[in-house]
């Protein structure tokens, strides 16, 4: 059984240091698409964390019974079944948000984060640590989603969770909403700058240059 500090480390490591979105490049698609408002971002984050944790638990429980050659199909079917359950729950109780999320809930199935964690961790570990690892990764993903979603909603609409924070110019305030923040490009910029900020803070994450141009290689020698 894992000791106290280990549990804490497994849970907190993926928050920033091993963040699934900014370092491992997993699950970016949905991270950007659903972040126009905090409410959709939160729904997506909770759905993904639930699916990820349950999938890790189930796969890790039956890990000795899955033949290696068909493990991907087994994992995908388990994840897809969980996603269908989540999708039906959202449609039943949060119909409006479910419409706003459109196909992106279904796309949790092919979110590389889910398969990445089950493949890399849950397949080799006992159920409890696997679920903790999955939960930690879900939290790291949620953190990025909330930051991006919060920035976009705050500057795009002057609201947070639908409540006015910055008084709009139309309604007698001073803030003119930046409609660019609601469009696709701003999400890329915010995430790019977020990656830059994290990597300046933790320089060991910086990547080596992709290729060296011929002129500079000679200069280096």
């Amino acid at each position, binding site marked *: 059984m894992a000791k106290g500090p280990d549990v804490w480390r497994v849970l907190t490591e993926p928050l920033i240091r091993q963040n699934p979105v*900014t370092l491992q*490049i*997993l*699950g*970016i*698609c*949905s991270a*950007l*698409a659903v972040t126009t408002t905090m409410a959709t971002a939160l729904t997506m984050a909770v759905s993904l964390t639930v699916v990820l944790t349950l999938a890790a638990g189930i796969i890790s429980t039956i890990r000795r019974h899955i033949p290696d050659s068909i493990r*991907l*199909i087994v994992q*995908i*079917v388990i994840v*897809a*079944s969980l*996603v*269908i359950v989540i*999708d*039906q729950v959202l449609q039943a109780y949060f119909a409006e948000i479910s419409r706003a999320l*459109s*196909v992106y809930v*279904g*796309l949790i*199935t*092919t*979110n*590389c984060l889910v*398969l990445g964690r089950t493949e890399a961790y849950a397949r080799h570990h006992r159920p409890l640590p696997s679920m903790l690892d999955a939960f930690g990764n879900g939290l790291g993903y949620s953190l990025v989603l909330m930051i991006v979603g919060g920035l976009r909603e705050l500057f795009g609409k002057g609201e947070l969770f639908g409540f006015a924070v910055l008084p709009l110019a139309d309604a007698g305030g001073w803030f003119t909403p930046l409609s660019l923040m609601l*469009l*696709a*490009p*701003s*999400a*890329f*910029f915010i*995430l*790019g*700058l977020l*990656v*830059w*900020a*994290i*990597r*300046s803070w933790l*320089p060991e*994450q*910086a*990547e*080596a*240059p*992709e*290729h*060296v*141009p011929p002129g500079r290689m000679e200069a280096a020698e």
Partner: protein
Amino acid sequence: MTELWTLFLTAAFVDNMPLILFLGLCTFLALSKRPDAALGLGVAMTAVLGVTVPLNQLIYAYVLAPGAWSWAGMPELDLSYLALIAFIGVIAAAVQVLEMVLDRFFPAIHAAFGVFLPLLTVQCAILAGSLFMVERSYSLVESTVFGLGSGVGFAVAVVMLGAIRSRLAYANLPAGLRGLGIGFVLTGLMSLGFAAFSQMAAAS
């Protein structure tokens, strides 16, 4: 005919998968470091989307849609909640078959696709193509055109990003921005450019 052409252009440029709808970004960013690898990915995407979207359309229309079993005396049967599992299965099988056929009859093309083909099974853009087909209720012809258009749009975007990133070797970037960071910023700039297409579509 013109309607299909419009659908093709809309799928390729106005609703560009990686740049406007944020689909398939993981592979989009991971495999765009060089233009030649990017081209292989783009061609594979087009082929797989062009095959799986019409295939899933047939399955949805004749097996899963509400009322599809009325000929068998079960008009109330609605299996559409099984769409997700069915689509994933079809995509996995189609990719496998496509790979075997190419390997057997067109080894040159198969070698060019390389490792990308099996990877595409778990690519969100591929699954999203089929899910959009259901949401917008395309016919068989429309879904073929939509699949090919989306694939071409993805290919154009990924090759462009690959070309830009290979030029980055001459830029002196801050260490933290290298790789993923600048990849996102470049994608954002390209996305700004592609946003102009949606303005053109709205104006026409």
